């Protein structure tokens, strides 16, 4: 009884305290960030805690879309040959300050040069700091692409490329291209603590970093000098809560205002809860079954098409995604520009599939289907998906053995050219550009790496290479639409699903937009007291 009283008193105290103090927005995040310098890391959890609240980029994605607009660069010009990008920088943008640093100047060209050159130049003093692994910069082929970053004057910067690259402007809006303060970097280097750049970040973003306790909480203050106008929130808190069921309970109890990644099984209950609004948007992702097109009989397009026709995708959406997904017919999601909606998906027709296989002389086929051991937005339960495919294929006389490996092994073994069987995998877009799906996942350069179908098809390759160096969006759109037609004819994958992203929020939250690139962005969000 005594215990009960004590607990009840404590609960009352916290309620009283919460009504007395103006509350910041509390976001129940799913994990701890790896650090606060976005260029060093690759996980969305880290970008949510660093790139989005703390920093800006030369160009920015409009929250809730993949449209690219001016950010710290007010405008830019591209040379006729597509090799020189000249950016006119925004003036009067202030950096945050902390106990160890107060900026003496506004943002200028030196900060842009520092932010890129530390990643690009091996002899840069910051190249090796905090481990110095610039995986996104490398992954987007920036070291090969960028020849130089030059300061024209304090507010003008010129990037020189060694080949035209249409997605370049979108790449600059990505997290790895966050703009850090060169002055802060110099001060920390002088103080002998360069790693502070990653641990006590200084940026120009809508929120400034206050404190971080690993696996517990991150605190941010609202930046009153933010160049787009200060956020109406009185600070921002990330309450790190790894378990989805616990996040749900915290949201219900009012201990946080927004939570990401709910359990699919909880969505229905959340939708009927008056204290929770469930926002949703189609994710910028695709889950697929990739054949090894270099191995017989999967080198035969008709065999691949027959197998595609045997998969009951609707059953997968119902069972594996529990309704929170939609059937994929193209390798890029419908929310992406250049999505070719005129394409018709392979019909689900086991009888026809069986006849097609027989016509190709393929009988008694046994194959492996690889099921990922981890949950991903594009595939919440690969094992279950593989079982459904196994059942579908057995109906057309194809015997399936499901294999799985530890995640690292899975990624590594599935790259091998002689991989036995078809693999379940997927992709979430980085920069909203179709090139980021089609070239990375299906281009000839990706063979033995991110192109798990080991598929190199000349007509397709020509289209995507041409689109990559064309700056005119209409022309690019036409090329990518055509590439999707070729893809559908050749069927290197069975495209399975695009997932729907759900964000449960409290009713007092308004203005939150689900971002198609997967980030969680709180600038523009308002909280009713």
């Amino acid at each position, binding site marked *: 009884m005594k215990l*009960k009283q*004590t*607990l*009840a*008193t*404590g*609960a009352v*105290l*916290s309620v009283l*305290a*919460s009504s007395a*103090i103006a*509350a910041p927005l*509390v976001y129940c995040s799913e*994990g*701890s960030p*790896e*650090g606060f310098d976005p260029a*060093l890391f*690759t996980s969305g959890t880290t970008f949510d805690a660093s790139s989005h609240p703390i920093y800006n980029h030369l160009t920015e994605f409009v929250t809730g879309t993949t449209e690219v607009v001016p950010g710290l660069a007010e405008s830019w010009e591209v040379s006729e040959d597509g090799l020189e990008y000249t950016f006119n920088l925004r003036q009067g943008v202030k950096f945050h300050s902390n106990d160890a640093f107060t900026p003496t100047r506004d943002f200028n060209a030196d900060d842009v040069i520092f932010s890129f050159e530390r990643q690009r130049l091996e002899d840069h003093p910051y190249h090796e700091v*905090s*481990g110095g*692994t610039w*995986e996104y910069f*490398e*992954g987007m082929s920036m070291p090969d692409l960028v020849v130089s970053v030059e300061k024209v004057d304090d507010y003008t910067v010129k990037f020189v490329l060694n080949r035209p690259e249409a997605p370049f402007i979108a790449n600059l809006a990505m997290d790895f291209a966050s703009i850090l303060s060169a002055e802060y970097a110099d001060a920390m280097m002088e103080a002998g603590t360069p*790693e502070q750049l*990653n641990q006590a970040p200084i940026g120009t973003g809508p929120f400034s970093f206050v*404190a971080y*306790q*690993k*696996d*517990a909480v991150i*605190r941010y203050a609202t930046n009153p000098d933010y160049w787009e106008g200060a956020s109406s929130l009185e600070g921002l*808190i990330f*309450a*790190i*809560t*790894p*378990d989805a*069921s*616990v996040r749900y*309970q*915290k949201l*219900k*109890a009012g*201990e946080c205002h927004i939570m990401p990644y709910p359990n699919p099984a909880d969505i229905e209950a959340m939708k009927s809860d008056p204290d929770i609004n469930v926002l949703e948007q189609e994710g910028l992702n695709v889950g697929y079954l990739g054949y090894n097109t270099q191995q017989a009989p999967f080198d035969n397009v008709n065999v691949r098409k027959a197998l595609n026709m045997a998969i009951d995708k609707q059953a997968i959406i119902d069972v594996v995604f529990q309704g929170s997904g939609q059937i994929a017919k193209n390798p890029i999601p419908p929310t992406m520009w250049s999505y070719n909606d005129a394409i018709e998906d392979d019909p689900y027709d086991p009888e026809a599939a069986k006849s097609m296989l027989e016509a190709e002389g393929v009988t008694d086929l046994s194959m492996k289907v690889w099921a990922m051991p981890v949950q991903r937005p594009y595939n919440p339960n690969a094992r279950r998906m593989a079982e459904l495919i196994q059942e579908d294929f057995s109906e057309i006389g194809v015997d399936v053995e499901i294999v799985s490996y*530890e*995640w*690292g*092994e899975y*990624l*590594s073994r599935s*790259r091998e050219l002689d991989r036995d069987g078809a693999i379940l*995998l*997927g*992709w979430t877009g980085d920069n909203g550009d179709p090139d980021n799906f089609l070239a990375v996942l299906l281009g000839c350069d*990706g063979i033995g*790496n*991110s192109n798990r179908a080991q598929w190199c098809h000349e007509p397709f390759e020509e289209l995507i290479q041409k689109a990559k160096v064309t700056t005119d969006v209409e022309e690019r759109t036409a090329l990518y639409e055509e590439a999707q037609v070729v893809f559908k004819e050749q069927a290197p994958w069975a495209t399975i699903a695009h997932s729907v992203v759900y964000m449960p929020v409290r009713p007092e939250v308004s203005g939150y937009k689900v971002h198609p690139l997967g980030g969680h962005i709180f600038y523009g969000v308002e909280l009713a007291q």
Partner: protein
Amino acid sequence: MIKYFLSKLLTFVPTFFGVTLISFAFIRVLPGDPIIVMAGERGLSDERYAELSAEYGFDRPILVQYWDYLTGVLQGDLGESFVTKKPVWDEFFALFPATLELALCAMVFAVVLGLPAGVIAAVNRGKLFDRTLMSTALVGYSMPIFWWALLLIIVFSGNLGWTPVSGRISLLYYFDTLTGFMLIDSLLSGQDGAFMSAVNHLVLPSIVLGTIPLAVIARQTRSAMLEVLSEDYIRTARAKGLAPVEVNGLHALRNALIPVITVIGLSVGTLMGGAILTETIFSWPGIGKWMLDSIFRRDYPVVQGGLLLIAVFVMIVNLTVDVLYGFINPKIRKR
């Protein structure tokens, strides 16, 4: 007594080296390459793989890698996390007080309830209380921690609203970490309600983490007491007309405590293991969650260093238990 202590201390040395070897080998025996895991679906070129391999030192012979690790450990350098790029040592000590605080509270919960329950059950052997207690203990011992924790959260935090769902203290309180122990730091902060908030946050995780040790301690106390109660000197004490409280509390319990203390010592290892699940569910920023994440990410330095430090901690606790034996039972230290 000093000789006894030193002889126990000497057994530390081979165990310590054994643990360095096992912790080094354990994470490498698991399939999965940290570089491939880090690159994810995107993958990386063979050249980049070779570069990173050289950077992390994976291109060197395994024995050389072990030797470097061992010499580092002996100089107090456990390396840097592949993921956060921070020294393992710093990360461990930032998180360890949270685990220790929770483990101590769980242990207090288990001992305070488990000891008397075991004694009462032994004294009332075969009666309803004994039977009920022992069946409850069995249920407690077999309870899946994950399920038990969620059940408590849903009932006490969700439905009744008595306890907070997770975390160490309400987010409204913000003060500098001085000791890392939230109960102490919240008191030192002087902020109204901070200490009560910290206590509130400890209740459910302590119950969840303490449930299995509670069951073990209750059962162990009961069986140790039953053994002692059948001894001749207890019969003599009773025959002399001593009060039951004196017989059970003074004569029987002290002698029954030896195996119980062993169990308490061993439970520290269990608590460290149980902390992984409990910390994950209650968003408790301790080393359990940290180790689990590091194993998934194949963060070699953290797994090696973390295992080693946890093992050293468990060894210290067991050494303390050994010394405690000496105090409780003079026969042991004279042997």
